[in-house]
């Protein structure tokens, strides 16, 4: 069975500091992986996706994620947090359907 684990339910950073949102997947093969963002009372928006091309994937709004097969990880990072980054972030794997992680709420302090 394939599952997605987001290691932190809540992450709090100060504006201008780096962001790290952790995600591990369990699978016997390399899946396609995505990060989606959900702002309050909004739908989900795709940040970036990995589909077995380059292992370092750049997304929108300065986010990027690195696929590490040896660690079965797909952590999301951003060098400098902005207040507008405060949202819920979902790591997602797929095998014919999307399998969501539990979500990580990112808070950004002024």
């Amino acid at each position: 069975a394939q599952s997605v684990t987001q290691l932190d339910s809540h992450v709090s950073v100060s504006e201008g500091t780096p962001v790290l949102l952790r995600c591990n997947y369990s699978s016997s093969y390399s899946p396609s992986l995505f990060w989606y963002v959900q702002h309050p009372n909004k739908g989900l928006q795709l940040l970036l996706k990995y589909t077995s091309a380059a292992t370092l994937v750049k997304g929108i709004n300065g986010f990027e994620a690195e696929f590490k097969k040896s660690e079965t990880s797909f952590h999301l990072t951003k060098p400098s947090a902005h207040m507008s980054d405060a949202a819920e972030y979902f790591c997602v794997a797929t095998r014919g359907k999307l399998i969501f992680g539990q979500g990580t709420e990112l808070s950004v302090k002024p």
Partner: protein
Amino acid sequence: DTAVSQTPKYLVTQMGNDKSIKCEQNLGHDTMYWYKQDSKKFLKIMFSYNNKELIINETVPNRFSPKSPDKAHLNLHINSLELGDSAVYFCASSQRAGENNEQFFGPGTRLTVL
């Protein structure tokens, strides 16, 4: 604007009632989905249609019945609503079915069953 739209945005109703949520996409996509997001923000797929045909049907009570009159629309009808149906329901679409296709989400419908 090109988008996935849902109506209504909020729905408050009594237990036992029947209600529908509508979804439309004008992106020209072939595949549409319904997701349920519970109070802990956990998202799970319910149904998927490709060109009006059901391709994914997760373990969902048969009180939930999706209907796709054409590939731009996927409506969700819920019979005999229960308290546990309270959630946010998201519609989504993708160009094709398949794991690499980006899904575009609607704004969600918050259903509250009293």
